[in-house]
């Protein structure tokens, strides 16, 4: 019975993940189109079958492999990225019940797997045997390092407040007030970092303008490119889901709704916000965003936020309780 339960939960998660990615690709194309006063894709009814058309096109397109690429590595690199990205969903509590494995170090494990997945994407570029793709991979690593670090530091503040690294404990600690209210600086850092890490378009980092035709995925085509894109979308979904769980109370909501419902509503609200910001502001150059936004602004700000939280937890909180 327990195996059936796990099987059904896994199936549910897989279906939910695929659906979520489908809706996300649709929003990414249609919503962005409307934000830019365009129609966006119109395949099917208002473009609803466009993600399917994209998938079919990429799946049945011929796969060409460069002679300089590192043989087996270029074939399996997308899986190095995809496997950690999907494993994350065994730890993420989408609802009170829809959780495959509860662990005390959930948050750390999620960040580790997320970074492993990004490393997999970087390996994909390095295995291409193309110098520009290798540079693209280095951009991926630099970009993730620069923006995941402030993210991790701001989540340490959340860990201090909730007193746990378990995702369910973190969500339960937000029964009285969501952490977006008690940790506004941390939430802002998380949001800005998410916006920076959501980088799928060829014109954005990690494929800078110079590498527009030679990003980390330049040598990928067909099914392999499909997997790589899918991984990137799952990672974006994870990042946005993390924002929902850490700062917006996960499945907790002001009115009684199914817990998965609240999770989905909040996740897509954050996705809308991220896409809205991303398509409204001119994009800084790679080195400018790394130095000015990440290392000079978000990193010190997250350290400051951590110090504030520690002071609050250690000195002020006991006084309030008394």
């Amino acid at each position, binding site marked *: 019975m327990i195996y059936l339960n796990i099987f059904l939960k896994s199936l549910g998660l897989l279906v939910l993940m695929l659906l979520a990615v489908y809706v996300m690709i649709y929003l990414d194309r249609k919503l962005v189109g*409307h*934000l*830019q*006063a*365009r*129609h966006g894709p*119109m395949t099917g009814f208002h473009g609803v079958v466009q993600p399917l058309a994209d998938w079919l096109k990429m799946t049945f397109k011929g796969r060409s492999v460069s002679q300089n690429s590192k043989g087996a590595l270029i074939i399996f690199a997308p899986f190095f990225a995809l496997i950690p990205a999907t494993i994350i969903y065994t730890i993420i509590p989408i609802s009170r019940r829809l959780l495959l494995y509860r662990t005390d170090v959930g948050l750390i494990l999620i960040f580790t797997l997320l970074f492993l997945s990004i490393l997999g994407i970087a390996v994909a570029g390095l295995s291409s045997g193309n110098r520009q793709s290798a540079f693209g991979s280095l951009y991926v690593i630099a970009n993730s390092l620069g923006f995941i670090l402030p993210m991790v530091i701001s989540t340490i503040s959340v860990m201090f407040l909730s007193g746990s690294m378990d995702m369910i404990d973190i969500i339960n600690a937000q029964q009285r007030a969501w952490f977006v209210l008690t940790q506004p600086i941390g939430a802002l850092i998380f949001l800005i970092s998410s916006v920076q890490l959501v980088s799928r378009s060829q014109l954005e980092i990690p494929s800078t303008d110079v590498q527009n035709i030679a990003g980390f995925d330049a040598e990928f085509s067909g099914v392999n490119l499909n997997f790589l894109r899918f991984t990137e979308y799952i990672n974006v979904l994870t990042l946005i889901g993390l924002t929902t769980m850490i700062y917006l109370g996960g499945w907790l909501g002001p009115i009684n709704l199914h817990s998965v419902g609240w999770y989905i509503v909040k996740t897509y609200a954050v996705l809308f916000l991220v896409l*809205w*910001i991303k*398509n*409204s*502001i001119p994009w800084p150059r790679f080195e400018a965003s790394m130095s000015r936004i990440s290392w000079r602004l978000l990193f010190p700000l997250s350290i400051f936020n951590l110090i504030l939280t520690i002071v609050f937890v250690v000195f002020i909180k006991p006084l309030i309780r008394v």
Partner: protein
Amino acid sequence: MESILKSMWQTLKNMFRRSVTVLYPSDKIVVPETSRGMIILKVDPDSHELLCTGCGECKRVCPTGVIDVSSAGDGEKQRASTFMLDISNCVFCGLCVEVCPYSAIEMTYKYELTASHADYLHYDLEELVEYGKQKPREFWI
């Protein structure tokens, strides 16, 4: 910060306004009055004679050298005998129209000039005259 909020407001407004793009080819926009498209050779409406004398001014001024013209006859009777236009290399600068002393060349609004083979983009005198018989604005409908 103010500029970021301003641009976010602008993009939000975009969501509720009419799309600036059209679903080509099912929808088409009216091309602007000043747009330059396919070149035609004009015919005198009364005498139905070709206005082009084949003087070669257009050939001389064309920056991409897509026009090739020759003439026959002398004096008042001089008329273009051949007129070849390779539209695939035309940059639609309109210099030929400006330089023509007889106003024999005109640019229409036709912009859909794709063809299945490069040879189909070479137009001769008869074809250019035939195009000229249509009303300019009919080209894009």
